[in-house]
């Protein structure tokens, strides 16, 4: 696998198909890190294993690192990352022909305790979409997909409002407002986040439980109908806030309310930019 990835990267960098290649490498501690390769000689730095959890599509909109206008960029995507990429394309942040997509078949990523990530269990796209990627590396995996029951979401929904407020209060009290969740999110590509604007200031920057409530509502709302549950936010959170549960709440709401799942179609826009005349009305006073 890794050989093929290196080979693909090398070829692209060599023939000038891409001027930069985004992949996974290792740091001195042996931890997996994102790497940005400019020369074909560097491809030995590429690695592939079940710790390649990062969603590299996040860097496609990182204006400090990549300027897509300057030439095509190669990127390794897993099936799940590919969904983010489709949203990025639908939202005109990435043009399909500005990138070369190296899809890599994934058989589930593992956390630091060597356990398969929960998102991978219900993942329906271990095999990247061949029609979407430029190359797909790896043997197609056949497996039974576990039905996503949203049990995490339902567990919270089963609580009464006061318990829910207490539960989230506990987590948001912990939140440092380090913005790792936002900054790691491939869909948080705004040039200046609304949270950083101070005139008007939508949420004070200080980390208090109350302020953090509003911060997390805004984060979740802005991802509504867009989030593909790549889980990066939860992974990045240093204080263990179950951010995926929040995102998945909205994914479920969007699925139930608008019969929409984000990340399937690079043409599809968020359901909040669409409507049906007979949308639900039961919440209207």
């Amino acid at each position, binding site marked *: 696998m890794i050989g093929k990835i290196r080979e693909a990267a090398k070829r692209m960098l060599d023939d000038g198909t891409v001027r930069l290649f985004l992949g996974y490498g290792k740091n001195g501690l042996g931890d997996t890190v994102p790497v940005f390769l400019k020369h074909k000689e560097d491809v030995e730095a590429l690695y592939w294993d079940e710790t390649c959890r990062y969603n590299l599509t996040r860097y496609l909109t990182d204006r400090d690192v990549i300027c897509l206008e300057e030439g095509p960029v190669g990127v390794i995507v897993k099936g799940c990352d590919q969904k983010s990429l489709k949203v990025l394309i639908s*939202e*005109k*942040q990435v043009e399909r022909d500005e990138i070369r997509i190296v899809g890599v078949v994934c058989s589930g990523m593992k956390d630091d305790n060597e356990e398969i990530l929960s998102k991978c269990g219900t993942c329906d796209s271990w095999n990247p979409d061949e029609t979407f990627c430029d190359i797909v590396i790896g043997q197609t995996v056949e497996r039974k997909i576990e039905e996503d029951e949203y049990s995490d979401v339902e567990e919270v929904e089963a609580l009464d409002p006061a318990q829910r407020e207490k539960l989230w209060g506990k987590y948001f009290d912990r939140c440092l407002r380090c913005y790792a969740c936002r900054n790691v999110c491939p869909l948080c590509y*705004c*040039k*200046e986040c609304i949270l950083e604007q101070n*005139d*008007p200031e939508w949420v004070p920057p200080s980390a208090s439980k109350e302020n953090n409530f509003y911060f997390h509502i805004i984060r979740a709302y802005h991802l509504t109908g867009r989030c593909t549950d790549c889980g990066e936010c939860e992974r990045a959170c240093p204080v263990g806030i179950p951010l995926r549960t929040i995102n998945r709440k909205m994914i479920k709401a969007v699925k139930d309310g608008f019969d929409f799942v984000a990340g399937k179609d690079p043409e599809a826009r*968020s359901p909040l930019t669409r409507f049906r005349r007979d949308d639900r009305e039961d919440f209207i006073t």
Partner: protein
Amino acid sequence: MNKRVLVIGGGIGGVQAGLDLAGMGIKVTLVEEKPNIGGRMAQLDKTFPTNDCSTCILSPKLLELASSPDVDIYTCASVEGIVKTEDGFVARIKKRARFVDEKKCTACGLCAQKCPVKVPDPFNKNITMSKCIRIPYAQAVPAVYMIDREHCLRLLEGKCGVCEKVCPAGAIDYEQQDEIKELSVGAVIVATGAEEFTPRIRPEYGYGIYENVVTSIEYERFLSASGPTNGHIVRPSDQKEPKRVAFIQCVGSRDVASGELGYCSSFCCMQATKDAVVTCEHGPNIRSTIFYIDIRAYGKDFDRFVDRAKTEHGVEYKRSRISGIIESPDTKNLVVRYITPDGALKDEEFDLVVLSVGLRMPDGLGGLLEGIGVKLDAYGFCRSGAFSPGDTGVDGVYVCGTVTGPMDIPETVVSASAAASLAARGLVSPDREPLGKAADRKEPDTSGSPIAVGVVVCRCGTNIASVVDVPSVVEYAASIPNVTFSEELLYACSQDSIRHIINKIREHGLNRVVVASCSPRTHEALFQKGLEQAGLNKYLLQMTNIRDQCSWVHRDTPDRATEKAKELVRMAVGKARHLTPLHERYSDVKKDCLVIGGGLAGMMAALDVADNGFVVHLIEQESFLGGNLLKIKSLLTGEDVASAVERIVKRVLEHPKIELFLNTDIAGIEGYVGNFTTKLLTGDRETSVEHGAVIVATGAREHVTESYGYRTDPYVVTGREFETILEKKNPLLKYVKRIAMIQCVDSREGERNYCSRVCCSQAVKNILRLKERYPEKTVYVLYRDMRTYGLREPYYTAARETGALFLRYDASRKPVVEKIEQGSFIIDVFDKILQETVRLPVQLLVLGVGIDPLDTNDRVAKMLKVPLTQDGFFSEAHVKLRPVDFSTEGVFVCGMAHGPKHTDESIAQALAAAARALTILTRDRIRSQAYSASVDEALCTGCGTCAEVCAYGAIEIDKEKARVNELLCKGCGTCTAACFSGAIDLSGFTNKQIVKEFEELFI
């Protein structure tokens, strides 16, 4: 051709005609006998059926007219004579001296304060005293004082001269003389109006004898917050609040006995209902009773208004004939003696009696009109033919308003617009020179000045001030940071107030203005204009609504209403601080007009626009023109319909400016005022037309009933079918001896709780035609109220005289028809007079079924983005003063699409809609609104979310940035709420402005 039009009369009719003409770029001279324009409407308290404040809705129009550069207003003036010339007329205008220089007077009121001579105040119907130098009322336009020459000591005796001494403006001029001016004009519109009947000639009502008997117009003044009692209802004899108020209807109207006033005055039923409701609102203990013959609630939503008066306000309606009113000398209470429908004589005591007086033509007008060949009818009205409303028979002279017969405000406005369109012929053309645009005003740059907010708190007479503690709001406003000036005004919308505000803006260097008064929806434009005149950008105004949404709805908690008003003011200031000057954009006007519907209204509108020289695209779904009219044979007034229709259709077909699309549907309408593109579908062929305005004349249809066995029995027919039977001399008539006409079938109840307006007249017409030929036949008319309003009343009288039997029934006890066999029925109906059920054997049932809106209205409404009423008819922008406009600019309505109406009314409306459309088509460019989305490119990621939600296609993504086409942007702001980055914002309603507005609430 002389391009000036003379409008005689400055009531709402004259004002509307003047506005429309000016809107078409035609110069107007308006002559008004009184010292102010506004006419009778200015004296009214509220208007039915919405209870809008009369002054509030009228004032903006008056100001608009007065500030139009194309309009000269002569007040205190009269037209002494008109002479026809080769290209128009020459009018001799007498301008009576005011003895006050109009240009100098600032209406400060010092003169009246110091004037020693007290005289009865004519504006308040002489109820109160005024001074010899006076202004009719606070909001009067023009706001100029006048000396009453009949009482002035200086003028009469050379003494006094106080006013001259105190006038700071040096405006008093005792030497002023009456002037005669000769004016050449191209056309004349007569809008002189009628006057109210003087009940003195009916002594049995005791008017002028008993103190506590007043006329309806006097009563309006009592109700008015700006009236003699500041809106407190008191009776004249003891200034105490009456507990029982009686309204006597038809005083001077429908009065065959007195000879001349055999007609109905049209509006009094509703006026009394409104006054009764307002009376009840004044106090929980006041009871209102209306004595009436028929309740003529024939207009849009009138029946619902009457229902509400009964059920919500407890207004009592007593059908009766009044035999007399007697005063109890000690209490000055009044005993109304009346005869009930069953013939009983009853007495009932009241504290106050209001006589609903009708309209009559004043003497003396005839001379002027007849001088140029205009014929008047027996009542002195200048009646036009049913197919030519507004026409006087003399080319170039047109009439509108109550001078043509009694009518209410919207009909007056319609007739005025119609007259304007007639008068405009030959004076406008699609390719005329652009009219002199008002020179682009240089606004001073206030961007560097510190924020200086002026706060004006309106008392609205007592409308606000009786609930909200206005002085404390003013005081509070002064304490808000950046407020450098605050004050209260009695009526912020009056012309003197506007001028006052302008002065204060200049004096205090204000650069933001907050007006706490009524709804910005109705008054924003007025105050904006004031700001403009003061040299400020008009978007530096922020209004807040402390009346409709505060004082009126928190009557019982004045403290909290006051607190709310303060917070609303603070919020408004919060937003005002962040207002920035905005500027409108311009777009070219496409000169064609689209008329939807080839019925009578559509054809007439099309002809009128085309006659004025503009191309019309006339769309009709059917393969023929004429609509409902094809099924009508003759009119109540006798005109032959068939020949008239033939004439009209021929004209349409032959008109070079009319492009006719038969068998054509509208597939879609895009664009905006001045700039529409409509896709037409004729069979499979799709065409598209571009146009600047749209007139909706889609019409309506006869109701299809399932009541009384209609459709199952050939002897059950509708009124319209009966008309054909009569016309065709159907053999059926030979067999039928006894005919029953049942009115209000399926109408005025349940879902169809509206009056179809035409059915009573249709019944009367059918009776007259029937009896003409078959006087022997028995006719029963089972009715709820006979609504032969206005000049239709004499026909009703005539129908009664034919021997037809009129039996009234209640909605709760409808006639019950028993079918014996085909062509034989027994009707059980409760006779109110006999107080028992009578059985009527008849052979033919004629049903007054009324009119339904079209099912397709909904589709058309959606395409045009215009609303429908609850009944499904098109809903105009304002029931009183914008009767053919929609809120959506550039779209107009006429005919039965708007609601049921008679032929002449449809035509008048068609002409009115044409006139309104012409006010757009005659312009070369129109201004679009200033509120528009704009993009902060530094923040924009080009994601296109905004473009996705824009309904107008106004946003496109160009080079990774969103770009807004300001001409397409309607300023809804949906994009701004969709943007995650806060990159797109809406001027006038920016994120920051809105946040700053509500933030003030939490300080």
